[in-house]
């Protein structure tokens, strides 16, 4: 089985080196989809429904069509005539300028027959609520509940039982670059510059949607401004753009507006979780039961992964998706997990309190993962867990501090990726791989792995990625990218090396197995008596560049991720403000490919977790059924001043090879913060986000003297 060399033999991998395209990004040289503007390109714009539930009765485009500069108007965007969420595309326009396109959209008169709606979880769950789909109930029957052991017997045997209800909110991906594409037909072929996490899935999906062959579709994504899961699938906007472009006979750019992005381009489902947990006096968890609900809007997939990381002998967990008149959810950084963590980790702390046990001891008592067992201890030491308040809320003065913790978990590993490498006679090496860099640093590790393997500098490698015409790789989702891509690049590099070793062996008159590639040179054998430079061996290729093909192989990556986080907070009990002062993030990361980009992923995940814990919340207006805060003033996201000190501990176990790192570190942050808040103020916040109004309301609801129950 393939193996990585040992850490001490690595000269690039496992060290810290800056991403290759950093300069391009900060200088504006990097080209994003909307920067690609071929001559004659038109600007597309969507008209979306202002109503959450309606029937389109009539669309009158006569005034818009007369506007100078308008080229095409499409009015058939809805399948059938039914509008099921505010923000659903109804018509599309392509015009000479973005301004004309916006004016044209404004001039289209759509007659709607408004229908009753249920735009949030609570209203959709009410009896007699308007149905989102006329042929289905809003509350979807639980499918395949998780069942293990005998729950009733488990609870009967428990010494303490805690029951509680938790809620989490809908979070939107809020990618800095909105969803969108620039499309251009060249003959029968369609070129798509897309902001995407999956050039291949867009190719397949778009070809199907347009009824053409995938061979005609060429998807290109050089750089993209954030996806977090919301750009894995082919976009409806891309298909609309392709139709506009076909009709206009001109290239078309169609980027969603910020508001459209909020409404129609995905989100993390919310959750309502009624949970019950039982434990023995010694802390061993014996029974769990839970019913959860969540809405993925008009879509599906709001499952909450309970009972989270915990191995409990007796379990019953059922989940119900609930349809609402809102944009469909999409995968979002560790789907189903932050919700589960927020509720379950608090429930565990509630049990710990009843048992009069330290929450960390309760975790250690029930920990079944060897890696996380070590991580808990590291994290506790880094945060100074002994400083945790023995009596919650016992600080004097209005600002109270506390500590909390939470765990993370993840499953997927790597899979099928292919790559091609060409070594040129001038010594330069080109790699083609149909993966894409969604900001995680994929381009950089592609080059680094090749450089490491060939024993040459990073500057000799040209990593070409982000094109569906390149060898197949999957979407950048599920934290699968590095474990999928890295082995393929190593395998491809090994094949190139083997060919070059043959050439070298002929030249040196030595055995090909003994040839060593190191420090930009090729050595005859271990004795290093004879050698030539990398350039020299490449010159031996004469006029024929060497091309090899490689693929993902077993042994270089693995699945399964465990991690944990500790948070320290300060709560101002006079204003309700929670300030996260510090987060210690212990991240399970197998073999670290690049320390800088790995730490970056953890930092970003923690920041997104803080934002989820304290600020972000999609708010649906009960009167109109529309998202009322679809802008960055009112949809609040942690800014620079909200970011805590983050101490990243990369807990590497290189022998496990490459594992995914992007998603798991966002899972425990909100739970660790919530537990820390309880430790600070002695009042539990069971709903996200933990905004000042909720903190003050919770404090106000407290009886003046706290009772022990």
């Amino acid at each position, binding site marked *: 089985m393939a193996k990585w060399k040992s850490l001490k033999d690595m000269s690039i991998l496992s060290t810290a080196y800056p991403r290759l395209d950093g300069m391009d990004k900060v200088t504006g040289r990097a080209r994003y989809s909307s920067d690609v503007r071929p001559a004659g390109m038109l600007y597309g714009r969507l008209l979306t429904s202002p109503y959450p539930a309606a029937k389109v009765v009539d669309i009158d485009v006569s005034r818009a069509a007369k506007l100078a500069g308008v080229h095409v108007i499409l009015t058939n965007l809805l399948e059938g005539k039914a509008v099921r969420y505010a923000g659903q595309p109804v018509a599309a326009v392509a015009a000479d300028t973005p301004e004309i396109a916006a*004016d044209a959209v404004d001039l289209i008169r759509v007659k709607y027959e408004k229908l009753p709606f249920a735009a949030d979880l609570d209203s959709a769950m009410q009896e007699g609520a308007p149905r989102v789909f006329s042929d289905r109930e809003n509350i979807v029957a639980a499918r395949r509940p998780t069942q293990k052991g005998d729950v009733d017997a488990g609870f009967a045997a428990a010494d303490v039982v805690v029951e509680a209800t938790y809620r989490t909110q809908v979070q939107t991906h809020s990618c800095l670059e909105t969803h969108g594409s620039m499309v251009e037909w060249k003959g029968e072929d369609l070129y798509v510059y897309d902001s995407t996490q999956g050039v291949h899935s867009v190719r397949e999906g778009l070809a199907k949607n347009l009824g053409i062959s995938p061979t005609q579709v060429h998807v290109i994504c050089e750089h993209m401004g954030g996806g977090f899961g919301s750009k894995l699938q082919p976009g409806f906007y891309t298909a609309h753009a392709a139709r506009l472009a076909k009709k206009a006979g001109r290239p078309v750019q169609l980027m969603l507006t910020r508001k459209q992005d909020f409404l129609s381009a995905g989100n993390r489902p919310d959750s309502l979780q009624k949970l019950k947990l039982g434990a023995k006096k010694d802390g061993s968890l014996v029974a769990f039961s839970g019913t959860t609900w969540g809405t993925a809007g008009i879509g599906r997939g709001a499952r909450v992964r309970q009972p989270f990381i915990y191995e409990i002998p007796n379990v019953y967990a059922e989940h119900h998706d609930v349809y609402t008149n809102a944009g469909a959810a999409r995968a979002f950084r560790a789907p189903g997990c932050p919700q589960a963590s927020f509720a379950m980790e608090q429930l565990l702390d509630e049990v710990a309190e009843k048992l009069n046990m330290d929450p960390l001891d309760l975790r250690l008592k029930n920990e079944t993962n060897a890696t996380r067992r070590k991580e808990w201890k590291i994290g506790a030491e880094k945060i100074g867990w002994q400083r945790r308040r023995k009596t919650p809320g016992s600080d004097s003065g209005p600002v109270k501090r506390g500590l909390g913790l939470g765990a993370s978990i993840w499953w997927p590993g790597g899979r099928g990726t292919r790559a091609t490498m060409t070594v040129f006679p001038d010594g330069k090496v080109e790699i083609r791989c149909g993966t894409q860099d969604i900001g995680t640093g994929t381009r950089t590790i592609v080059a680094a792995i090749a450089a490491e393997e060939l024993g040459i500098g990073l500057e000799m490698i040209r990593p070409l990625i982000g094109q569906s015409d390149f060898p197949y790789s999957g979407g950048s989702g599920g934290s699968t990218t590095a474990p999928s891509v890295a082995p393929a690049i190593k395998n491809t590099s090994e094949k190139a090396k083997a060919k070059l070793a043959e050439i070298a062996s002929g030249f040196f008159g030595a055995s090909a197995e003994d040839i060593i590639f190191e420090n930009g040179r090729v050595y005859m054998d271990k004795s290093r008596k004879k050698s030539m430079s990398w350039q020299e061996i490449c010159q031996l290729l004469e006029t024929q560049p060497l091309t090899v093909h490689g693929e993902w192989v077993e042994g270089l990556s693995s699945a399964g991720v465990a991690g944990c986080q500790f948070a320290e907070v300060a709560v101002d009990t*006079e*204003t309700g403000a929670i300030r996260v002062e510090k987060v210690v993030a212990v991240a399970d990361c197998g073999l670290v490919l690049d320390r800088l980009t790995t730490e970056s992923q953890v930092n970003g995940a923690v920041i997104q977790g803080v934002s989820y814990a304290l600020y972000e919340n999609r*708010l649906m*207006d009960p009167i109109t059924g529309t998202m*009322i805060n679809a802008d960055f003033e009112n949809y609040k996201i942690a*800014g620079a001043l*909200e970011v805590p000190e983050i101490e990243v501990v990369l807990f590497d176990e290189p022998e496990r090879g490459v594992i995914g790192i992007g998603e798991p570190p966002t899972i425990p942050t909100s739970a660790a913060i919530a537990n820390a808040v309880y430790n600070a103020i002695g009042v539990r916040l069971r709903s996200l986000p933990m905004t000042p109004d909720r903190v*003050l309301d919770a404090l106000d609801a407290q009886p003046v003297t706290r009772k022990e129950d």
Partner: protein
Amino acid sequence: MENFEYFAPDSLDALPGLLSRKRERTMVLAGGTDLLDMLKERIVKPEKVINLKGIAGLKGIQHGEGVRIGALTTIAEIAADAGLKREYTVLAQAARSIATPQLRNMGTLGGNLCQRPRCWYFRGREYVCLKKGGSKCFAPEGLNKYNAIIGGGPSFIVHPSDSAPALQALQATVHTFGPQGEDSIPMDEFFELPIDNLRAENVLEPNEIITAVSIPKPAPGTRSAYIKFREKQSLDFAISSVAAVLEMEGSRVRDLRIVLGGVAPIPWRSQVAEDELRGKKLSDETIRRAAEAAVSEAQPLSQNRYKITLTRNLVARTLRQLAAQG
């Protein structure tokens, strides 16, 4: 944004000929940090936009007997002015709390006083709310965690300006220019409640502009402070704020002004709170009573009761901070 005619006059004299008496037909542009948003979102659709920035004499901070600040002075200049920081602390602190460095560099004092409400129903194109000529204020039945707890009805907006409570607490006067020439309006009379005026938040006629704001010299023994609470520190409006100016005589409060921001459709001068302290010593007890009085007029909506607790605590915190300066 819709098309409009653009004018950039270089003197005040040109304004009467350009500005309409009909609201919404013509609008003046200063830093544009608010107006441009309103134009782009098509909340306002003026026929003419008149840029004030070319008009001489509307900019700058002049210290003398008191201070005079031109309407086009940027928020950043106010926040950085040493004289203001020293003697008119509440104003410098309020200016410093506004938005972000970029917005403070562009935004002006006149624009800050005349900025429109941030209520999401007012700002959202699809909500035809009372202030936009609709038949109802959406806030009472809708999402109202940021709306007014005092002085609301029939509209429940809050006034978003941070400079206004500070200026009102400093007993500033607004200087205006219109077809009738120059005029002066005390800050106490500048803003109007929705019950008196639904389409605007102040008494300016559509064809009048602010030219400057002047503040009298504070009496000896004056201390002042501005405390603003927002949900996040990076770029956020006040959920509640307190501007307090105390004229001390020994340990006694000779006179004072307490003006609340973010809780009412206008900067809310809390005379009941002032009455609790006037002539008294600052003690835990008098501060507590003043803080209690400050929210005694509050009538919360369904989701903003917390603003009462918050405001009460902020008033007390501001007064405690000023007491500690003795």
